[in-house]
């Protein structure tokens, strides 16, 4: 400990670990969001305190120093006056290792297919791709948050917060030049998202007020990515030799908020008003990068589609979002309570409607279908009333009615209303039991469903090409039931038991096609045993069973009206998750901590199609994602003395995935080049020894 001017600063603990990782495959999945590679892992806590008993406090907490998943915190506070907090959080995100990389990369956003190979026959391309280099795909997120608070917990409080996140790396992206010409390639990522918030707050005896301003800016260092067409080296109309993909545009958001709460004459009120303006004015790319394509304007004049003919140079898009909410409640006598809720969320996209005389399809050719941009807007209004009844001192029943109304522009359904009734029970029948239960039932009704709305992009009339009987599920009429029962028992100080079930059934029975039903049910059980401070044991199990049913009809060039062309899928996912653990501190200096977790999913996709139509038969999929993850952790520690604890740690994980959508993937499938990164099966064993120094 060092003492200087009445401020004592000391290193509280130092953690040193030596890790040794053994993994049997190159799957990225084990380290998807973490850095557990072999080597040294260090952590430290450093504290400071003023000599007046801690009026000024300082803390630095460092974890994983120098690692890709390191986290560093700093806190400084003068109690009752101000505080400052800094958090630096590094998060890796690995998408896949050992990806097939046939592309040369003269710049991060320029992907070239080597000249001698580009445009030759498929056999040579296949051979080249088979021998291509390999890369790991992933990105690093570096998040910073700094906040200064003044007057926290006092009548007036002020705060300034700054946030910044940089994402840097690659993730898989794909694009096409046609059905038989699809390429996957690394998308260069270098995002900076910066935010600032200024806020003030007043808290009085009977209410409070908060207000502030928040600004967020997103910057993408890469406006687009250009990639070669492996199957064509000479650029011409209907023969693209390269494509250009527009990456996420720079954008910003300005937000003002006012929030309040009050108690007036036996009522409580709270609510807020938030205005958020989201905008982006990114420069538009040309219609295509293909210099061989000629575009045609509304007046019949022609122009090079790779460099002219745009109605505007920049997007100038903007959406104003206004949120208003107000809640109130009061006691009605000794046993009854009333709560009223209102909320309105208005998303008004005021972006200009831009008219385009046509577009370039897949950098391949000019299509003279005139287009107009569509500023989708909507308003969502929620109202509710809840009546609560204290049946006894420990049991409360409540009945609530809520209604949610949607009003949409440019979509298939303009108005939708969903009314829901909910009955809840909340009871503590004794100090040894808690019971919570609820059941809600709702019905959504809508105005006329206008299938033609999907054609709103086109300037000229088009015939509909989606099934007239299909109802998009976010706009479809439906019935919903939602239920939950949760019981917690504490038969003694040592034992606790909890069990319950919950579920949600969404029934879209009025839809002829599309999503027809989506049902999920959960069962859970948990047992805990803590006979004292030296032993803790737990066991839990959870089963989630989800069934989705959807109905479709296959069409050719025009919409089929033949029921024999129908097909349907019943999707089932059953996930069993369970875990157990024991922690022991026998009191002789040794500590033991053992846990096991298993998540096991079995999925199936069962198809049905009547004979005679097209399709006339279907083959089921029995691996609609079959996944199993087992994780075992063991930590053994021994306290050498009051200052030093040492020990060993072992982590075993076994991950297997049998995925329908990834099975059989190869870097080259007829006309399709894929990265095929490895994020599949692995078996990993991590062994570590550690020493923790209390200084």
């Amino acid at each position, binding site marked *: 400990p060092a003492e200087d001017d009445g401020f004592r600063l000391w290193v509280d603990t130092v953690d040193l670990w030596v890790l040794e990782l053994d993994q049997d495959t190159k799957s990225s999945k084990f380290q998807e969001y973490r850095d557990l590679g072999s080597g040294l892992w260090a952590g430290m806590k450093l504290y400071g305190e003023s000599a007046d008993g801690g009026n000024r406090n300082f803390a630095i907490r460092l974890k994983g120093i120098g690692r890709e998943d390191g986290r560093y915190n700093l806190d400084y506070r003068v109690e009752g006056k101000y505080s400052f907090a800094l958090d630096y959080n590094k998060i890796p995100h690995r998408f896949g290792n050992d990806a097939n990389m046939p592309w040369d990369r003269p710049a991060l956003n320029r992907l070239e297919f080597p000249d001698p190979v580009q445009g030759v026959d498929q056999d040579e391309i296949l051979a080249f791709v088979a021998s291509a280099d390999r890369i790991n795909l992933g990105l690093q997120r570096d998040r910073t948050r700094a906040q200064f608070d003044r007057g926290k917990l006092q009548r007036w409080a002020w705060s300034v917060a700054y946030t910044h996140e940089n994402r840097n790396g690659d993730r898989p992206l794909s694009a096409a030049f046609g059905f038989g010409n699809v390429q996957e390639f690394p998308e260069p990522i270098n995002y900076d998202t910066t935010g600032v918030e200024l806020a003030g707050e007043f808290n009085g005896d009977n209410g*409070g007020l908060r207000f502030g301003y928040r600004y967020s800016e997103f910057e993408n260092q890469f406006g687009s990515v250009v990639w070669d067409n492996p199957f064509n080296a000479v650029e011409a109309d209907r023969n693209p030799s390269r494509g250009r993909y527009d990456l996420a545009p720079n954008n910003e958001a300005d937000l003002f908020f006012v929030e309040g709460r009050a108690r007036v004459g036996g009522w409580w009120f709270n609510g807020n008003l938030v205005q958020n303006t989201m905008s982006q004015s990114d420069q538009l790319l040309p219609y295509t990068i293909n210099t061989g394509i000629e575009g045609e304007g509304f007046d019949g004049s022609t122009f090079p589609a790779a460099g002219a003919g745009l109605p505007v140079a920049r997007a100038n898009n903007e959406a104003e979002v206004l949120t208003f909410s107000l809640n109130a409640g009061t006691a009605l006598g000794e046993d009854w309570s009333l709560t009223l809720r209102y909320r309105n969320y208005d998303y008004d996209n005021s972006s200009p409607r831009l008219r385009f005389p046509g577009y370039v399809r897949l950098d391949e050719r000019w299509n003279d279908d005139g287009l107009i941009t*569509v500023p989708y807007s*909507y308003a969502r209004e929620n109202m509710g009333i809840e009546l609560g009844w204290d049946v006894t001192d420990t049991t409360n029943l409540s009945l609530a009615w809520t209604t949610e109304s949607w009003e949409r522009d440019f979509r298939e359904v303009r108005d939708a209303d969903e009314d829901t009734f909910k009955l809840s029970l909340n009871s503590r029948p004794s100090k040894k039991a808690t019971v919570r239960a609820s059941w809600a039932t709702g019905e959504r009704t809508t105005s006329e469903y206008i299938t033609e709305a999907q054609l709103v992009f086109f300037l000229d009339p088009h015939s509909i090409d989606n099934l007239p009987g299909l109802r998009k599920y976010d706009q479809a009429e439906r019935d919903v039931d939602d239920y939950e029962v949760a019981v917690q028992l504490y038969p003694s100080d040592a034992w606790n038991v909890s069990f319950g079930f919950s579920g949600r059934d969404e029934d879209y029975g009025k839809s002829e096609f599309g999503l027809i039903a989506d049902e999920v049910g959960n069962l859970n059980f948990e047992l805990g045993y803590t006979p004292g401070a030296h032993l803790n044991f737990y066991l839990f199990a959870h089963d989630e069973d989800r069934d989705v049913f959807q109905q479709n009809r296959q069409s050719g060039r025009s919409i089929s009206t033949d029921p024999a062309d129908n097909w349907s899928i019943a999707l089932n996912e059953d996930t069993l998750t369970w875990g157990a653990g024991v922690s022991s501190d026998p009191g002789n200096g040794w500590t033991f901590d053992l846990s096991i977790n298993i998540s096991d999913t079995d999925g199936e996709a069962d198809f049905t199609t009547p004979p005679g139509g097209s399709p006339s038969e279907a083959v089921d999929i029995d691996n609609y994602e079959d996944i199993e*993850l087992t994780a075992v952790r063991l930590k053994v520690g021994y306290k050498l003395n009051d200052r030093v604890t040492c020990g060993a740690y072992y982590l075993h994980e076994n991950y297997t995935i049998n995925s329908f959508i990834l099975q059989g993937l190869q870097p080259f499938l007829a006309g399709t080049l894929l990265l095929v990164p490895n994020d599949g099966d692995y078996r990993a064993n991590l062994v570590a020894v550690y020493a923790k120094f209390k200084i």
Partner: protein
Amino acid sequence: PTAARSSPSEDPGDYVGSEECMACHEGYQEKLAMTPHGKAGFAALSNRGCETCHGPGGKHIEDPEAYQPLILALSPDEQNEVCQQCHAGGTQFFWQGSMHESRDVTCTTCHGVHSYEAEVNQIKAASVQEQCYSCHKDIRAQAWKRSHHPIREGRISCSDCHNPHGAQSPKMVYAASINEQCYSCHAEKRGPFLWDHAPVREDCTACHTPHGSNHLKLQKTSVPYICQQCHSNTRHPGTLYDRTRLADGTNPANREFSRACLNCHSAIHGSNHPSGWALMR
């Protein structure tokens, strides 16, 4: 602040000062010492010490067995009022009327004043997520699924998105809507784009489930089937994609394997490309 009593109807006697409390409850001073409640600066907010929360100790000293100023003996509302004497602003601003408040959750359900596992915010469990899982068991199970936010790895926590003390927004998220909450990290999807995908602007959870999924990218239902729940158009969108159309099937189709529909329509969250109306550039 006004002090709490173990029973509001009972006279707790006079204030006696923390030193009197420590004469018997000596262990608590050490536990509190490293917490904001144990610092000298706490006096800037209250000079009552232990009795700030527990109420006057006079009667307890007179007869320690007959009168015990235990916070846990109070009703949930009374317990919360003790904490809200000071913690009524900040993230607790909307506690009144919140889901947890209305279901009789108390501050001490999650936070330990004298003893806790997680140092930051004095959470009783080892981490925020472990605390939340003690009730939200379905979320714990989802976090173990193949596709998940980095919650179980401890890189983000439930409280990065949700305010457990109450909010004016659905699902108690900090932002004004679920989408705006998602944009706080995924700002590249904020738009508005030249060509928007309408349901994307309305609700990210129309297609994604945020806590864990068996499918890529937190999809509620895997592509191509989730796309076909809305798009059963002529030609390829309405085609049946079964076992035979997989990469190793008898008639493979790149509309089913790898990213299925998104192999071509990869700008699914919106496109700013003049030729991007079909979300392919």
